[in-house]
């Protein structure tokens, strides 16, 4: 018996409401984040991640209130990502009750921000979120690059090299999203997940593309992920977290039941 693989439901929060888009369009309202977090906790979620996609700066405080409320009644680890650009942003989230913050674009624009954040708050609370897209052609060995702006802007940075660099800079965990798969429900990009997981010494969370319970198990077994993240399959009660865990256990994966 050993460390359990984690299932992490992700809540995309826009102006204090949970939303989920399919390929960044067709954003559907999925409800109240506090209520949904409570349900996930009851069903046995190992952690909960909030991704703040609120576009306007003025409404950023809404996510702080959401985290405060959830952290007062849900006693599992909470991660908040989206719009984390300064040490002060991190401090605000941790003070609200978050255990970890996800840093995405800010790391690409200024890698030293990750170093400063890890030195100030400790690596255990710094998750670097990596949005990667395949750039190799069919038949070539797999090659992925970092994209920003929701997968629209290429940076020319190799994803594996970037993941290693972020760990050197103090990232305590990597949240890896395949921009090719995000919202498609076709499953994780398993070669990408495996390549990153085998390249770094810290835990890797696989994200992007989950459409059924086998996808979650594949992420662990074939992708070698330490944790799997999904949003839409849980929001609309297609599957409960408990069903997902039972299914992973039936495929021989150690989970917290």
């Amino acid at each position, binding site marked *: 018996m050993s460390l*359990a693989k984690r299932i992490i439901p992700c809540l995309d929060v826009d102006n204090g409401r949970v939303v989920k888009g399919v390929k960044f369009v067709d954003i559907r309202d999925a409800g109240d984040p506090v209520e949904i977090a409570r349900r996930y906790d009851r069903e046995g979620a*190992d952690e909960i991640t909030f991704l703040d996609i609120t576009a306007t700066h003025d409404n950023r405080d809404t996510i702080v209130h959401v985290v405060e409320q959830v952290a007062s009644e849900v*006693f599992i680890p909470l991660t908040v990502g989206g719009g984390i650009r300064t040490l002060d942003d991190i401090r605000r989230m941790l003070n609200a*009750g978050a255990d970890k913050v996800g840093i995405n674009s800010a790391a690409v624009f200024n890698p030293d921000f990750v170093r400063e954040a890890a030195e100030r708050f*400790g690596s255990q609370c710094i998750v670097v979120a990596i949005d990667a897209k395949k750039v190799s052609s069919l038949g070539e060995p797999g090659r992925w690059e970092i994209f920003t702006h929701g997968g629209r802007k290429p940076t020319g940075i190799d994803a594996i090299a970037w993941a290693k660099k972020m760990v050197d800079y103090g990232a305590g965990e990597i949240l890896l999203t395949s921009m090719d798969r995000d919202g498609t429900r076709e499953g994780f990009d398993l070669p990408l997940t495996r390549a990153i997981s*085998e390249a770094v010494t810290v835990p890797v969370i696989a994200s992007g593309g989950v459409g059924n319970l086998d996808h979650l198990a594949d992420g662990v077994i074939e992708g070698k992920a330490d944790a799997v993240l999904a949003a839409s399959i849980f929001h609309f009660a297609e599957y409960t977290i408990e069903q997902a865990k039972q299914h992973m256990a039936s495929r021989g994966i150690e989970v917290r039941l």
Partner: protein
Amino acid sequence: MSTVAVIDYGMGNLHSIVKALQHAAPEVDVVCVSDADTILGADRVVFPGVGAIRDCMQALKQSGLDAVIQQVANTKPLLGICLGMQALLTDSEENNGIQCLDVVAGHVVHFAEALTDGDGNALKIPHMGWNQVHQLHPHPLWENIPQDSRFYFVHSYYAQPDDAAAIAATTQYPNAFTCALAQDNVFAVQFHPEKSQAVGLQLLNNFLHWDGHV
């Protein structure tokens, strides 16, 4: 009404531990303090901590809380959590070697490099996630907590007490390491009870009703 003091020495967020203690035992008065008199006047004391041991010990020394914690360790129920557990040992090899509070004789060491799991995959450091806690002896803090329950961990260092009798529980990663210590009125855990859902709240509730005797 009994009181529990959560020691605030400026090392990060205490929101979760305070909320969890309030939730675990609503009848207990939870105060978050850095003032020595209030800490020494409380019925029970929680010593939390995250981050690096050098910063932790520096903050404790500057505020004089190092001596306060040593005094608490001789007098009333004390619960060390995560870095708060590690700081109770004699020293830690983190940050090139740091002297700690020496409440429990022993050392804090890093997970060995290049460990692998049963399938030959490299083990990730930090040890992060839900792992099983194997209780070695009955203790009031284990009451109503099933053997081998999973608690939430996030750490790269762990305690090695000199006296094996102080080991209250072990966890496998991949070898057994000490995840809980018990010595008289002191109890300390490497995992985070405040982030370990029902079993974590049970442990906090047990602590809040513990008289310090085994």
